[in-house]
């Protein structure tokens, strides 16, 4: 770092009055009005991270309560042996929906809510970098959740378990729509997860306050960054698995059909490739919130910031090497079991590092026993216990006994409730004053904690024993006298005590909104930027964005706290062009490199999500004409979304340093848009890798069927490979020209040439696959799935390149506004690489062995 952090010699963009304006500005509005949340029903068009974040939190919490009620139904049913409270069908629906809602519609959205709400406030930004994407993600989640939940109304609630194992979930054994409700609804809701991943990565890397280098980021940002990358890699296997299964149910493609070389274990691999990282995706942000709150109540910075960073990153990676420990009893070779067993135990190392960082932090000062602190202690108690039983489960012989027994139920609830729900309640007590401007009750908070803590341990500790006594999971009823009666009764009692604790929280939440004492500035004496303003923070978050010199700015930078927050010095006090703006930074050093223009409230995210929801719901109902209409609406929404004048090419004063001016939406690889595109490409590669894995797996495990599958046409596979190279070269040229600001006409020509190459590539793939009958074997079906995936990528590229050409032709882009082409280039290159790999795979498969 240099002494003058802002002096990075920014290259002033070309200043040209022809487009030096802000076509989307609202000149009649003041700074405050520009940032105001639209009134009335127009609030649905709001894209502010504060609004969207709270929506995620509230919706997620409602789903938590729904799934909690389902859990109580489960416990009521198991209260006594031979209970007839619920019949088997209902019980199966109830436990399926409990798991599904908790995992997909509560835990992930809840952490997204915290991330969306907190990230800009903690890193000194006025909003997330892709506010519309956040709003779009929320609506996808909401509509997906509604689809899943509506299955109850149609008496078609999924009853195949949250893991949806095939062949039980194929149409042969699950008739009707129940499994389709699950697959379609959850896939729609997962769109929110992957969009959130892109959003989190780009926001944390690209919009930090001036001077906030990686080492000055609040520790939570590291946790969220790693989580976001994990979502980007971890969700695609499930998305692919769900699509393959839905394609089997809907179109009869034999991906999992044993008689045609499909394999039930393929589903399990794909599911747990997602499912195991998912647990860490849920745990890490919660641990990050603990790492944020703990130092506040000790009054000293976190012990071992560097240790924690390494632990989080290594844990993120290691968690991908454990998936098969959910499959120890499936008859995998013992050598594979042992590999996954060893890898599973290794995850204890980074976990231990984190836990000991937390414990060591307590020695640094005199801890205050507040309500959030109680929940942190509860987290440590429960999570350490759950972690230890996790190491036990990594031992294969023990796992073979405990797997699918109540021991696992106990373990997973210790890890998930201990590792997520307790920190989450701590975080709610900690940040609710920030949401509402009022403090929650200390007394009721302690009641809530102790009820939850005691109830939880009573309910779930017993289950270790129930499991060791041989009780399998997911059984609606059990005979009397096997030794499970009393333990189950205690568990049920505990569950209701736990529920009472949550009820106390809810009562307190509604009570405090009316009569809670007003929050002063920084009520917890915290160190991070979100407490700079007296809650509730105004809609723009920061009137001026302060320069950051410390990881604990509110403790170490007196100029932030010695005056009213609105008077704190910083960047962008001047409102250029009456637009929403924030500072964009270098991903590593945190030096400001651009002024980032943010969108104002818009309906396009809602329209796009609604279109997608119609598409998904109509597919569920087999109304394909309606699906087409939904797809069209989504396409129109997305086109309207991106059809906007480009902001690049302008330079503006920031108010930092000696009159530092920065380009608006800089055309550079460090641009938030480019970083976001790279994040998206990461997801696309993970999707592709999942398909490739499926193909390789079937090839290796079902060799006879692979042998019997008709070969793709080698000549066209070869042509496809060549065309992929051409597409890569064209995309590379597009990117070079975007950065060097070449002439528009030439750029348009390259766009069109790219379009031609894409069409040719698509046709060539089609002819390569033509000899292969997708219904003949699972291996052939996976070949077609890869072809379809590449075709989808090509379709997006084609749309994009024509879109860019059209915008150049209509004068919507002028010289120097190269971002759209820079992004297209990155996407085109990735498409070319995946098309190339597919072509080579077809070539290899087409070669007689």
């Amino acid at each position: 770092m240099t002494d003058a952090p802002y002096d990075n010699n920014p290259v002033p963009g070309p200043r040209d009055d022809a487009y030096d304006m802000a076509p989307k500005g609202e000149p009649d509005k003041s700074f405050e009005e520009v940032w105001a949340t639209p009134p009335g029903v127009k609030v649905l068009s709001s894209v502010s991270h504060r609004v969207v974040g709270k929506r995620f939190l509230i919706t997620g919490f409602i789903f938590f309560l729904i799934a909690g009620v389902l859990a109580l139904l489960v416990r009521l049913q198991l209260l006594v042996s031979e209970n007839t409270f619920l019949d088997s069908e209902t019980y199966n629906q109830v436990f399926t929906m409990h798991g599904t809602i908790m995992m997909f519609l509560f835990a992930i959205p809840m952490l997204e809510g915290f991330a969306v709400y907190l990230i800009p406030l903690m890193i000194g930004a006025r909003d997330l970098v892709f506010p519309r994407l956040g709003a779009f993600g929320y609506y996808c989640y909401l509509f997906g959740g509604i689809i899943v939940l509506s299955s109850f109304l149609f008496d078609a609630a999924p009853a195949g378990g949250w893991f949806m194992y095939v062949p039980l979930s194929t149409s042969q054994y699950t008739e009707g729509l129940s499994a389709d409700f699950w697959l379609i609804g959850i896939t729609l809701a997962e769109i929110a997860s992957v969009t959130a991943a892109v959003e989190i990565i780009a926001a944390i890397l690209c919009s930090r306050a001036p001077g906030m280098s990686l080492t000055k980021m609040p520790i939570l940002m590291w946790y969220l960054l790693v989580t976001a990358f994990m979502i980007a890699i971890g969700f695609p296997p499930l998305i692919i698995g769900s699509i393959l299964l839905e394609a089997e149910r809907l179109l009869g493609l034999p991906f999992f059909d044993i008689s045609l070389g499909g394999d039930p274990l393929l589903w399990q691999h794909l599911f747990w490739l997602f499912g195991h990282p998912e647990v860490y995706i849920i745990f890490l942000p919660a641990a990050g919130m603990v790492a944020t709150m703990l130092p506040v109540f000790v009054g000293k910075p976190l012990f071992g910031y560097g240790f924690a960073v390494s632990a989080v990153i290594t844990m993120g990676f290691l968690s991908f090497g454990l998936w098969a420990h959910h499959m120890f009893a499936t008859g995998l070779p013992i050598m594979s079991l042992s590999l996954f067993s060893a890898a599973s135990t290794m995850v204890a190392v980074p976990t231990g590092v984190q836990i000991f960082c937390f414990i060591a932090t307590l020695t640094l000062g005199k801890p205050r026993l507040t309500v959030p602190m109680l929940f942190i202690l509860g987290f440590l108690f429960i999570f350490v216990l759950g972690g230890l039983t996790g190491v036990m489960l990594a031992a294969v012989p023990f796992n073979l006994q405990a797997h699918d027994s109540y021991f696992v139920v106990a373990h997973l609830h210790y890890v998930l409730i201990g590792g997520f729900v307790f920190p989450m309640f701590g975080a709610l007590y900690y940040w609710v004053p920030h949401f509402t401007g009022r403090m929650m009750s200390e007394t009721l908070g302690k009641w809530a904690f102790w009820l939850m803590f005691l109830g939880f341990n009573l309910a779930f500790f017993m289950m270790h024993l129930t499991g060791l006594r041989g009780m399998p999971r997911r059984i609606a009823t059990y005979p009397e006298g096997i030794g499970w009666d009393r333990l189950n009764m205690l568990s049920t009692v505990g569950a209701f005590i736990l529920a009472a604790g949550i009820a106390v929280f809810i009562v307190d939440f509604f009570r405090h909104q009316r009569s809670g004492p007003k929050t002063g500035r920084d009520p917890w004496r915290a160190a991070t930027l979100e407490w700079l303003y007296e809650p509730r923070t105004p809609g723009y978050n920061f009137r001026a964005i302060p320069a950051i010199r410390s990881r604990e700015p509110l403790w170490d930078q007196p100029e932030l706290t010695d005056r009213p927050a609105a008077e704190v010095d910083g960047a962008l006090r001047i409102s250029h062009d009456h637009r929403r703006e924030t500072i964009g930074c270098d991903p590593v050093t945190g030096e400001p490199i651009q002024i980032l223009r943010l969108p104002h409230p818009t309906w396009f995210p809602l329209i796009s999500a609604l279109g997608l929801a119609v598409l998904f719901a109509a597919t569920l109902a087999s109304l394909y004409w309606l699906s087409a209409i939904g797809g069209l609406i989504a396409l129109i929404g997305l086109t309207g979304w991106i059809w906007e004048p480009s902001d690049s090419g302008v330079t503006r004063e920031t108010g930092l340093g000696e009159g530092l001016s920065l380009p608006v939406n800089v055309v550079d690889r460090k641009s938030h848009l480019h970083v976001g595109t790279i994040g998206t490409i990461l997801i696309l590669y993970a999707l592709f890798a999942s398909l490739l894995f499926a193909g390789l797996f079937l090839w290796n495990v079902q060799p006879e069927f692979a042998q019997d599958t008709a070969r793709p046409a080698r000549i066209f596979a070869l042509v496809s490979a060549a065309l992929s190279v051409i597409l890569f070269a064209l995309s590379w040229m597009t990117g070079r020209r975007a950065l060097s600001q070449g002439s528009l006409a030439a750029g348009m020509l390259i766009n069109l040439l790219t379009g031609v190459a894409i069409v040719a590539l698509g046709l060539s793939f089609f002819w390569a696959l033509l000899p292969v009958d997708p219904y003949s074997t699972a291996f052939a079906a996976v070949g077609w799935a890869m072809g379809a995936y590449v075709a989808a990528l090509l379709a997006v590229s084609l749309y994009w390149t024509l879109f860019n050409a059209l915008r150049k032709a209509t004068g919507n882009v002028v010289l120097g506004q190269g971002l759209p082409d820079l992004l297209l280039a990155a996407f085109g290159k990735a498409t070319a690489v995946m098309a190339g790999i597919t072509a080579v795979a077809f070539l290899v498969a087409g070669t007689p062995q």
Partner: protein
Amino acid sequence: MEPTSDSSTLDIYGSQSTLRPSGLGAELTYDLTLAMTIGFGVVFVFVMLLLWVAWRRQTPAGHWWVWSGGILLPVAAIVVLMTASTAILVASTRSDDEALVIDVTGYQFWWDVVYDPDGIALRDANELVLPAGRPVTLRLKSDDVIHSFWVPSISGKMDMIPGRINTLTVRPEEPGRYRGQCAEFCGLSHPRMAFEVVVLELDAFDEWLLTTQGEARDAAQPELLAGKQVFIDAGCSACHEIRGVAEGGRLGPDLTRVGARASLGAGMWRMNQGNLAGWIADVGDMKPGAQMPSYNHLSGPELRAVSAYLASLR
């Protein structure tokens, strides 16, 4: 018809608990469980004590806290654990060429059993008779969805996956009765998919195998004869086999010695005439999702006769 209320299985079966091991795999795993519980219990108490010390302590901790607690402690524990668990894994799954082979196939929601499939191929269902002190290789299969074979007292579980044959070598030791249950969620009546395991002394087992191979016990009394006729007339043999009476039906459990089993409906109900009659008249009530249709069109006497006949088959 209501199933009779004395459905408690405790007196029909022995244990379903991993904590009462009675086979080599379960015993080794039990020792491992005990050792891990004590070891990790100590670790847990230690960490909680440390938490308490940290809370009270005024002087900052050194980096060695994280070094020793986050790296050394887990690594030491992992090395010990992996060594023990690998040894036990190898010992408890070791195959044996001399082992008796039994095929067990899972169906929604019952178990088909074939003793010595390459030799005498003796077929039975929902009950597994094993010799004490002789290794047995179970070849586990499924013909519909995934099931999982689990007898906690004898060994760890193994999934039954359609399209695959998983083998599990078990070494039961104590003669007695045990309960097994399907451990992989397999649909509507997953909780009602259990079975009994009878472990006999080696001699007794050989004798059992010999005597069971023959045809079904003859129906001597008139009522039983009538029941046998109902069985044939009602078409039961389309799915069920009774050796010497109606052979070839393989869609449902073999009934040659149905009356000798401790339970009815795959480990769910006490085996007696009343429950048998109730089952035949209304399967769906006793086992939702079972493939068998209810024979509620049978008259009372017919029902009595056929259930008496089945109960007599031992």
